[in-house]
């Protein structure tokens, strides 16, 4: 169903879009964090981009693990280990595979979420990455269960992620730096949820262009 060429395209698109949104993400982090989320993520994906060439012809597991390790050893901050762990856990699901199926996609997202929960001791409603990622993952699963194709699944995932981002505006942060602000974090959207949304959007774009 989905080959590694598609994956490479997706990751490259994620990089492009993250870098495009560098200032926007940083600005979001400025309001409730420490003004570096866009910088951290761009730096990470810049390096990912350079590393991709080496693994272009490898399997899904290797590619995802490469992304994971690159983020882990280059980003730092909170987002480095979180996204790193997410990609790392996801990679275990598709170890050695050059083609993956819908079931793999569902597992891959579940594992990524699990990874972030463990690493970040966080959950839905904490105003983090998870508030975009969990709804997106659920939307994908539901769509596949209803027999929809990936294009539709990720369209819905993008919508769910965006709603998740909107939802983060209404809640108090319980994890991450924004949590120090208490009540003052309300009204602002979470930078990490936003970068997750951008990454889901990248997948949807590539699937549509494909």
């Amino acid at each position, binding site marked *: 169903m989905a080959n590694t060429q598609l994956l490479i395209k997706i990751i490259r698109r994620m990089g492009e879009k993250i870098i495009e949104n560098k200032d926007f993400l*940083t600005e979001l982090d*400025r309001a*409730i*964090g*420490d*003004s*570096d989320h866009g*910088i*951290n993520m761009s*730096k990470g994906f810049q390096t990912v981009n350079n590393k991709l060439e080496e693994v272009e012809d490898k399997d899904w597991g290797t590619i995802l693990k490469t992304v994971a390790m690159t983020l*882990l*050893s*280059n*980003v*730092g*901050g*909170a*987002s*480095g*280990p*979180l996204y790193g762990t997410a990609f790392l856990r996801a990679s275990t699901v598709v170890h050695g595979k050059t083609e993956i199926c819908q079931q793999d996609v569902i597992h891959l997202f579940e594992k990524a979420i699990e990874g972030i929960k463990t*690493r*970040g*001791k966080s959950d839905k409603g904490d105003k983090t990455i998870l508030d975009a990622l969990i709804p997106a993952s659920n939307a994908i699963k539901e769509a596949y269960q209803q027999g929809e194709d990936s294009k539709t699944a990720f369209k819905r995932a993008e919508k769910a992620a965006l709603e998740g981002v909107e939802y983060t505006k209404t809640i108090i942060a*319980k*994890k*991450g*730096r924004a*949590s*120090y*602000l*208490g009540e*003052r974090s309300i009204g602002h959207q979470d930078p990490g949820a936003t970068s997750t949304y951008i990454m889901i959007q990248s997948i949807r774009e590539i699937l549509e262009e494909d």
Partner: protein
Amino acid sequence: MKKIINKTENVVEDMLQGMVKAHPEYLKRISESNVLVRKKSPVKGKVALLSGGGSGHEPAHGGFVGLGMLDGAVAGEVFTSPTAEEVLKGIKAVDGGAGVLLIIKNYSGDVMNFEMAAELAQMEDISIEQVIVNDDVAVEDSTYTIGRRGIAGTIFVHKIAGAAAEKGWNLENVKRVAQKTIKNVRTMGMSLSPCIVPSSGKPSFEIEEDEMEFGLGIHGEPGIRREKIKSADEIADALLDNILKDMDLAKGDEVALLVNGLGGTPLMELYIVNKEANNLLKEKEVKVYKTMVGNYMTSLEMKGVSLSLLKLDEELKKLLDSKADTPAFKQL
């Protein structure tokens, strides 16, 4: 952005080079890393202390590497935790066979990266322990949150655990006294102006000429509330008040007081704050055993001050008093 820097992406690299050049008798840098360790690291048979975190808090933490304090410090990008990989390099560089204690400030990024490095180090049979400093009383402490931030009180942990390690205590015992220090220390800060992360180029928050942020951390974040600027006495009172509310201090108890500048506030103002802080503690019949005034844990060029109180007992007093020789903290 008015800064004396070169390329914004090089600030940490340039700074680390400048630090080593300034203090060659104290520091060396581990090659291809942002890790600074003691000139003669690892110290065989001594428990090693490693700290670090984002840059922008100078002299923390590289300035506290030396006799009686840290063995090494890992520097991340400005206000960004170093990666687990970097922390692992630090652990390996300071390990002298008696184990390594990680002193981590309680930020998601720091905690995650240091913990991941600890896991990796354990896989290489390095005995490793960690303590997490969470002295900031501005932040509500609850099991539903990540708890309090680690800020200026960290310096006391470096000093006291460092003294214990220098005396040859074992890892367990050094960790115990580090944890006692963490249990006994509280901090609260305020600021008059934001700071500018070089790579972002923008002030971390906007604030009016007559306003101040109260209860803020060391990463340019806004505080827990904004108020009209008050007098130094009122500021000292308010900070101490918040600290004392959260501390179990009886008349006659002894404390160490740290009046910490956030980077852009001149020493004159820190001393002015110290006057009132000392007076107030005297009024409450709390004995100030030792006072430290200066820029210890900064937030780039931010204007502001934090107060830290460490409740002392005989053990902590002895360790606090013992010799230290580092670029930023010396005690004869």
